[in-house]
């Protein structure tokens, strides 16, 4: 509608048939209808039933979020759509590989901060580290920001994988 509503961020889990084109369908839906994708992860989760799970972090008004879920449910290879943000508590994590190139005090400082964030150095040369950091998006953001003045040269992030708390399955 015309009135300016609050933009909300939602994490949506989608269970799909692991068939060619399914990711293109989901992405095409978002681009074709002008929805946002903040992050998207996908991988096979059930080989026996040939199912993949897509986790999408998106943002929009309440009406748009409802549309996104309904449009996703309309896709033939989509089995289940779950809005983790409103369907109870959930946990979400992403992994980032962060490359820092520096020497001297900056190099030492980057190691100290990595320690605080429980990031691991998984590659090292005389003038660089690759850190692996895992956590909520905000934590990963904060880590990368702190690395900027310390010689940050490259970042690779997975996007959020999320799951509901408790015993119930999707």
């Amino acid at each position: 509608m015309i009135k300016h509503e609050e933009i909300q961020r939602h994490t949506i889990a989608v269970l799909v048939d692991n068939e060619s084109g399914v990711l293109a369908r989901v992405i095409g839906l978002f681009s074709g209808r002008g929805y946002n994708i903040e992050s998207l992860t996908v991988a096979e989760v059930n080989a026996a039933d040939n199912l993949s799970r897509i986790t999408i972090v998106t943002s929009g008004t309440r009406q748009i979020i409802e549309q996104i879920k309904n449009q996703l449910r309309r896709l033939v290879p989509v089995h289940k759509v779950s809005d983790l943000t409103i369907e109870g508590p959930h946990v979400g994590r992403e992994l980032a590989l962060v490359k820092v190139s520096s020497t001297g005090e900056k190099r030492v400082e980057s190691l100290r901060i990595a320690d605080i964030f429980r990031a691991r150095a998984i590659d090292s040369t005389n003038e660089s580290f690759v850190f692996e950091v895992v956590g909520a998006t905000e934590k990963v953001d904060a880590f990368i920001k702190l690395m900027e003045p310390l010689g940050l040269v490259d970042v690779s992030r997975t996007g959020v994988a999320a799951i509901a708390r408790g015993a119930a399955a999707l």
Partner: protein
Amino acid sequence: MSQQGAMNGAEILLKALVDQGVEVIFGYPGGAILPIYDELFKQNRLKHILVRHEQAAVHAAEGYARSTGKVGCVLVTSGPGATNTVTGLADALCDSVPLVCLTGQVPTHLIGNDAFQEADITGITRPCTKHNYLVKDVADLARIVHEAFHVARSGRPGPVLVDLPKDVVQAHGEYHGPTRFKSKYKPQVKGDLKAIEKAVEMIAAAKRPIVYVGGGVVNSGPAACQLLTQFVRLAGFPCTQTLMGLGAFPSSDPLSLGMLGMHGTYEANLAMHDCDVMINVGARFDDRVTGRLNAFSPNSKKIHIDIDPSSINKNVVVDLAVVGDAAHILEDMIKVWKAKQVRIDDKALRAWWAQIEQWRGKDCLRYPASNAIIKPQYAIQRLYELTKHKNPFITTEVGQHQMWAAQHFRFEKPNHWLTSGGLGTMGYGLPAAMGVQVAHPGALVIDIAGESSIQMNIQELATLAQHKLPVKVFILNNQYMGMVRQWQELIHGGRYSESHMHTHPDFVKLAEAFGAVGLRAEKPSQVDDLINEMISVDRPVVAELRTDASENCFPMIMPGMAHNEMVLGPEDRSVEHPGSEEDGMVLV
């Protein structure tokens, strides 16, 4: 893939089509699809209509599907054959027409190599089909074809494309019938009974109700249309129909307010604006219906019945949604209504009808009569009067003539009105009429056309000749792309940018060149004779009527305006300025 089975892929495909009830295929052969055409040659269960352009094959299948309720079937080759179907598929998706489009594809080992006549048609058509498939193994072929038909006809119907690489249809495999497969695609059909009870409660409390009916009721089938009519008459409510919903409720019934929306009737739009309870059955609050959204029916409680959950709260936030098939929900509504012995507020309803009759009194569809020049509205009125005893099927192209047809032709039954509503595809009407005529060989099928639209698929006159399809093409020739000219006059300062075609073919000679009968009328006094001659000939006819080039289609809700800001005619200057982009609306 190459293990020796009883049948090759092409045979499996045709067997699957027969088992799915296909009788007619609309198509055009080419390299990649030749193995299937070869099998088609060897059998006589399936009839093939050879079109002159693949877009027309899809529209013809749409005409077949919309007039019968069955799934239409298209067969074309790879590359350009496949890409030519895109407009038709997009049209069918917008208007929820069940189709299965079979496209040839280069052999699997060449896919991705930019081979001759290769196009990534599943990629291209992903956003304009309900679903599509690329068959990579002959072992999957029968299952995929059966599933394609299931998806096309289930839930909200739509077009499904199946891409068939040449080596797959040449390989041998096993055939399995439809009963062997269970599709996981199961849209909700029954409506939630609690929601239906709530809906009846809301309706019972209404003082100024309106029933707003869309193409979903037609798509649900004749039973849904009957139940809708029963419900509207039971309640005594006013009923308005969208462009796609015409025919779902008999237009001769005094409860019918006619079409609503941009070129709808005054009484329908004002009743929508002033109602207190709106019952939307199978319509989708399209922008051509709602006008300016923030002024759309501001004081009503809205009930939305739709089979597609994504239609709910998409454009208009509603108070109550019932998801499911219209026929099931209407049946349950009537049951609940009768069980609860609903008493509506008769006094309020009488007052509401008195108000509606006052609006009706404006006689918003009237137009200035003329003895000198053919008014397009007059041509359509005469066409209706002189053909209604034959219960004709009417298709249209897109533009002014389409709106005049919607306003002045009357429909008592569903499936007799076929028009491109959502996509607005010029060139739809002639091939669609072709498809209708194939399905109903003895019926009177008329394409009401404009001289511009008809030229977009004029080549199909050759198809009519080849297959002896006596379609009547009724061209209102006003020398302009009329609706474009109208908008330029009303909204763009009279700057008629490229809307005038300085030359047109001689339609009478053109008809004769294609083996059809050509007729022409230039004066109002010739109209009846032209129509009578047109319908008495058992051959394709192209009838050209030279109409008033300056006539505009009214009433009209100008873009960006609300229902209660309708312009009734050229003399009505109650609204001088259409809305602007500053109102948060782009004029479309």
